[in-house]
């Protein structure tokens, strides 16, 4: 059972919450995936108007956290409030109204494969507005221009590279001008140019549109370079929280190992297993 980097010894941060009224307030979150407890009483606040990074090793539940915030998954206990509304107490219609104020960039892009790039970005506008087609065209072209992909508007998603598909998905995610965008591992598998463009795009979009952004990632330097606030989660707990500078300067042994990518430390690379020699000899 490969669990990635896991370890003990780091002290959990209790209610390390940023000041001010948060847009997302999570209290006492518990969630298990099968037998595995991903969140064990997590408290976490996402401040309005900034970029908040949620980082941690693979398999710690970062994507799950986004799905919990957006109401795609239900916690075992605890509450998640978005703009004062308890996400998991909302009816379907109210949840959909709330989701119209959220955009989500999926790790895979999740573009509708039978629609062109243009139609993918136009999709939420056609579904939720009664704008004339001429206006939708202008809006879509502006969104595609913002991500630098106006030139591929007629292409199908299958003809795009992974990085381009994610940028189209970003244009779609901001099509309805949401209040908040959830980014799921936006930098994974990007070439250096796409990575640089995406990093600056996320920051630029956030500042230009007055958004709140949650960036889930394990790309430490890129994520911290644009984050105002950061959380590091592992073992079902918040290991560190604070401004990007505070997290970078953390003295926690566990956090240092994660941020610096060190092989030795409280977090173990290997999943628990019997002695290798005994295992090879069939004695384990």
């Amino acid at each position: 059972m490969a669990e990635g980097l896991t370890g003990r010894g780091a002290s959990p941060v209790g209610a390390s919450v940023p000041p001010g009224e948060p847009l997302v307030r999570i209290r006492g979150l518990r969630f298990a995936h099968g037998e595995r407890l991903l969140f064990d009483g997590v408290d976490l606040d996402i401040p309005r108007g900034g970029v908040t990074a949620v980082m941690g090793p693979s398999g710690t539940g970062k994507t799950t956290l986004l799905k919990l915030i957006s109401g795609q998954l239900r916690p075992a206990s605890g509450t998640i409030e978005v703009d004062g509304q308890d996400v998991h107490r909302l009816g379907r219609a109210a949840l959909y109204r709330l989701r119209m104020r959220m955009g989500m960039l999926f790790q895979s892009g999740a573009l509708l494969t039978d629609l062109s790039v243009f139609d993918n970005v136009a999709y939420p506008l056609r579904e939720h507005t009664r704008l004339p087609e001429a206006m939708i065209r202008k809006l879509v072209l502006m969104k595609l221009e913002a991500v630098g992909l106006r030139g591929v508007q007629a292409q199908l998603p299958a003809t795009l590279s992974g990085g381009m598909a994610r940028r189209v998905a970003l244009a779609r995610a901001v099509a309805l001008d949401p209040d908040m965008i959830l980014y799921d591992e936006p930098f994974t598998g990007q070439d250096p140019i796409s990575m640089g463009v995406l990093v600056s795009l996320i920051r630029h979009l956030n500042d230009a549109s007055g958004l709140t952004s949650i960036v889930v990632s394990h790309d430490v330097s890129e994520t911290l370079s644009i984050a105002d606030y950061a959380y590091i989660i592992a073992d079902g707990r918040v290991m560190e929280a604070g401004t990007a500078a505070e997290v970078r300067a953390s003295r926690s042994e566990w956090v240092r190992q994660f941020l610096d990518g060190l092989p030795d430390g409280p977090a173990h690379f290997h999943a628990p297993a019997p002695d290798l020699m005994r295992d090879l000899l069939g004695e384990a």
Partner: protein
Amino acid sequence: MLDPLARLGRSGIAALARLGEAHLLLVGLLGGTWDTLVRPRLLIAQVYGIGVLSTLIVVVSGLFVGMVLGLQGYYVLSQFGAAESLGIMVAASLVRELGPVVTALLVAGRAGSALAAEIGLMKATEQLSALEMMAVDPIKRILTPRFYGGLLAMPLLAAMFSAVGVLGGYFIGVGLLGLDGGAYWSQMQAKIDFSDDIVNGVIKSVVFGLVVTWIALFQGYAATPTAEGVSRATTRTVVHSALAVLGLDFVLTALMFGE
């Protein structure tokens, strides 16, 4: 001692839970009726995908089944001096049984498996989740048009199957074996009853259309979002659809034609 019993209980509960999920999906599909009616283009696209693109296999199969019925029927009937009744035998077999049943099996194999794979892959590639995040209900927007597409296409395909099969029987009986063409058609016209034969055949194909499309959509929607999960969903679609169609055919036949 108790382990096998516990396993049996667990699998029974799991099967019941899955059946419950399938029925909840059916309720969701029926709940999306209005959304599909106000977006006829989505429905037309699915009638094309499920119906029009299945035409070739249905027509060719219908032709061969009709030709085989012509041959087999002629040799049996001629032993009793009733070869002139070939027309009614071919038409009744096709309209009552083979048309709806074989068409349903063919549609399950061609369009049902494609539906399950498409929905399963949309789930695996997070397209359904993306729709949810865009505040668009994937059951209403993606699944329901496919459901009604299958429901509409099935009786039309079954009608085509039967019509081409009757022509296949004619080519063999009249064209090859020298039966009288007038007797072939007039016997058929006199003995095939509109409500007993044709309407009942249409009812069967509508029921099969509902069941096959429902099974395909459920298997795709409930598929484990992996390559293996989608593969299993397509296999299950064909197997479950075939069993459901054959089982339901018996029940419907007993209800419609039993004394």
